[in-house]
């Protein structure tokens, strides 16, 4: 589904990703772990198309398409969706309005008509309930005055409504208490199916207790230095990143 090959990325002439390889197949959940500043957010941002990153080498293919040739919105419509670490506030724009515009944009790209209003309302009510969000959140401005946890739940709500093929979730667990973490994890788990994949970016292991990954990768200094299954996350938790570095240096 997603194939990242020898990806080199610089920001303001500073090399951040230095030859990263990653393959994700349908049905899989991948976790990318690594210390602060390793380039985890850069990876998901580059895949989503954020400005300010220069790809100096390498390719990103999504279902065979060259992602780097696509506009930001085309990537999203193709089913690549980024859940933000720091979702931005958009004053005056209702949450539900953004959701509807996004859903209809994606439907249009698939050649489907606009979703009928009652059907849409039913869908968002249902999904908000799953995320334990009061329906009043739908009427508020996007992320405005939301607590950290509410913002994260709102990101997952968007995922549940938009049903991406590949959901990339950047530090979706940061700033969540245990209850909120459970809600968010349940939401993410409900996205799991054979046709979909999930890329989790996190530097804590605890999220992975709730969302069990198929593959765990350790990203250090712009490269994936070690890959394994879910046990790798536990080992990292116990022994720290230095252990991986020592291992890879050897």
């Amino acid at each position: 589904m997603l194939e990242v090959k020898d990806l080199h990325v610089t920001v303001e002439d500073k090399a951040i990703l230095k030859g990263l390889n990653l393959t994700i197949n349908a049905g899989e959940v991948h976790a990318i772990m690594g210390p602060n500043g390793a380039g985890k957010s850069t990876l998901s941002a580059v895949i989503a198309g954020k400005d300010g990153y220069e790809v100096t080498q390498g390719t990103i293919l999504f279902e065979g398409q060259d992602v780097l040739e696509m506009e930001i919105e085309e990537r999203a419509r193709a089913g690549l969706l980024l859940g933000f670490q720091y979702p931005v506030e958009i004053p005056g724009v209702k949450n539900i309005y953004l959701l509807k515009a996004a859903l209809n944009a994606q439907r249009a790209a698939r050649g489907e008509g606009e979703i009928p209003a009652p059907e849409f309302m039913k869908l968002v009510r249902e999904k908000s309930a799953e995320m334990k969000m009061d329906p009043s959140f739908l009427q508020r401005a996007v992320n405005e005055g939301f607590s950290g946890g509410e913002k994260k739940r709102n990101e997952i709500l968007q995922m549940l409504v938009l049903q991406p093929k590949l959901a990339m979730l950047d530090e979706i667990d940061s700033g969540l208490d245990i209850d909120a973490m459970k809600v968010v994890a349940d939401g993410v788990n409900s996205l799991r199916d054979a046709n979909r994949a999930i890329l989790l970016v996190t530097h804590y292991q605890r999220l992975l207790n709730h969302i069990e990954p198929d593959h765990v990768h350790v990203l250090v200094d712009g490269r994936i230095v070690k890959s394994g299954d879910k046990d790798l996350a536990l080992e990292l938790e116990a022994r720290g990143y230095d252990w991986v570095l020592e291992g890879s240096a050897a």
Partner: protein
Amino acid sequence: MASEEMEQLVRREYKQGFVTDIESDTVPPGLDESTIAFISQKKEEPQWMLEWRLEAYHQWLKMTPPSWAHLEYPPIDYQAISYFSAPKKPEDRPQSLDEVDPKLLETYEKLGIPLHERAALAGVAVDAVFDSVSVTTTFKEKLHEAGVIFCSISEAIREYPELVRQYLGTVVPQADNYFAALNSAVFTDGSFVYVPEGVKCPMELSTYFRINAANTGQFERTLIICDKQAQVSYLEGCTAPMRDENQLHAAVVELVALEDAYIKYSTVQNWYPGDEEGKGGIYNFVTKRGDCRGDRSRISWTQVETGSAITWKYPSCMLRGKESIGEFYSVAVTNGRQQADTGTKMIHIGENTRSTIVAKGIAAGRSDQAYRGLVKIGPRAKGARNYTQCDSLLIGDQCGAHTFPYQEIGNSTATVEHEATTSKIADDQLFYCRARGIDEEDAVSMIVNGFCKDVFQELPMEFAVEAEALLNVTLEGSVG
């Protein structure tokens, strides 16, 4: 006020000098007393009205155009303007929509302007086959039942001279400013509204006006009076882009609210802004002022300014009555080469008067705009309060926004709050929307509409929807 001598002089000149050709429908370009006499005669005005105009003209001759605004334009040749011309004859106008610029039609389509109105707006010589006549008649009957007078200012001068004479120029005096003086001398069109004591006007004064808007003049004069406990909501303008051969527009709007009266005045202004270089656009120099004359009266201005090459406009409130309220909600959008210098004045005279200013400026392209607001608290305005919020949003990096807030506080018990922000349309907001699949233009309009929310929600419902569509059309092509 002019002295008696001057009046005599005026009258003498009138007797001697004027050669008016009543048969003709147009005067040649140029402005002198005979032009004014011609207009006045054409309109079948009483003598006092002519004198009033001439008085304004003489004051105007002594004045100079204001130079303090943040605007640049070549000097206007006032002798090159024709001050009276009858509406175009049907045979000189497009005969059907097929003859109209397809771009204009496309815009109407995007704005959702009803089909039957498009022709009128585009200046097509339509027989009155479409609804407007019957709609107008129904409206007139309803208003008549309620005792509301709503007619053209010319008609009012003939039919209700005592009302007009009592109020005209009492809010915006003839010599208030250069453009107001010019307007007072030569105005030819505009509306008059009188809502009698205790009457809540049964409808928004809009549709009627809109259908007639295609014929609005270059020097409009509007006078609205709300008697005690009366209420009216008046909608001026139209979201459709309006073309006009007259480059200079200098309107005057006067509002009078007596005790407990409430006037809500909403404007959507979308005059032709000119081509990409700003050529051919309208210069819009407007004087709008409301007088909260009675205790607990309230005047609310809401405006959405998107058109014109140059906008010079400061709807203001004189808060005389105790506990009277003045409000100003504004969205000004400039794109291309447009320039706008707009804002408001809140003059607190009475005790416990309150005012609210919410001004949103959006600049795109190479446009330039300024917010200019004055909050003045007089010595008797005990306990007066003002809240001002003005926010600017820049799209791209070739445009400019400036804020000039002025405060004159003459009473220490007053509370004046001012908040101002300037932001660039945030890249991370755009990215956020686009990363959800929303294309860039839609994302921009979504963010901009959100930015304007506080103002749009003050607009009457139907206008608010149109205003959003208008904003989108105005900002089309401003990114990417």
